[in-house]
């Protein structure tokens, strides 16, 4: 399985949950805390993100950046985790 991750701009996110519903991996959920706008924001709950981009496609606020592991030419699956997970834009 390709391994990926997302970075969500938590201060941009409005907590609409559309990304959460669209994630085939059920990787996303709402934060328990709120951002300055008062919204609980989307956040990566699990490490099973495949970088499928679904969440980013449906995000109305362009709050999601998606990363995917670079496939070597031989298409070896490396499962290195990125050093960041959720970060404020």
């Amino acid at each position, binding site marked *: 399985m390709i391994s990926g991750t997302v*970075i969500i701009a938590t201060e941009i996110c409005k907590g609409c949950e*559309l990304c959460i519903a669209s994630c085939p991996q059920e990787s996303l959920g709402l934060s328990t805390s709120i951002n300055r706008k008062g919204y609980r924001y989307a956040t990566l709950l699990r490490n099973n993100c495949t970088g499928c981009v679904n969440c980013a496609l449906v995000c109305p606020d*362009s709050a999601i950046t998606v990363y995917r592991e670079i496939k070597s030419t031989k298409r070896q699956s490396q499962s*290195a985790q*990125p050093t960041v997970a959720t970060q404020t834009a």
Partner: protein
Amino acid sequence: MSTTMNGTMEIVYEKPKTLTDNPTHYCPGCGHGVIHRVLMEVINEMGIAEQTVGVAPVGCSVFAYNYMNIDMQEAAHGRASAVATGVRRVLPDKFVFSYQGDGDLAAIGTGETIHTINRGENILMVFVNNGIYGMTGGQMAPTSLCGMITSTTPYGRDEHFIGHPLKITEMIAQLPGAYYVARHSVHTPAAVRKLKKAFKASFESQKEKKGTCFIEVVSNCPSGWKMNPLEANEWMEKNMFPYFPPGDIKLPATMK
């Protein structure tokens, strides 16, 4: 941001640089944001940002120019297509699009909509049909469904009193000036991908001066519908799609 990343990861999706960094004023989950982004992605990917002029309407998307990082004009309510005509005619080789809501395009702007398309203005018209007047607080739109409760049809739209929801897209598809007419949505990743293709095809045909491309996007208005975004999208699929079915309505031979 990617510089902070582990070297083994690459960005596979990020906000296009044709979007500004201004946070949108849209309600959570509102389709306008997605449609903006898809449009700007296409312009970005086609590398035509420097040659594109957009026209924003009066409606929730009135501030589109705050978000789209290209040259834009803000038109009077209903007149985006007339304004786009003005732009189109004097900049024949640029890319021009208009972006309008259902109240804007199909109520007050009906005349301009029809005549712009009848002239076959070589523009892309983006028509965001959320079945309601979002900006002014949820009044009935020409496309509000029968029985739909809005702030001006508090007992549900009564088609005997005020008529049926207007399928303006099917109407204008009849016009010879309409080159490519399709109805899309943005409620799923697949739908978003399709819409992106449609926008791209539209700009491609604009290069060849084929006439008007008209893309309706059936969208939600969580606030106006008084639902949360997920409910809204579900309601949309269940209620709007039967009346406004997504799909191609007029597909030029070259696109088949």
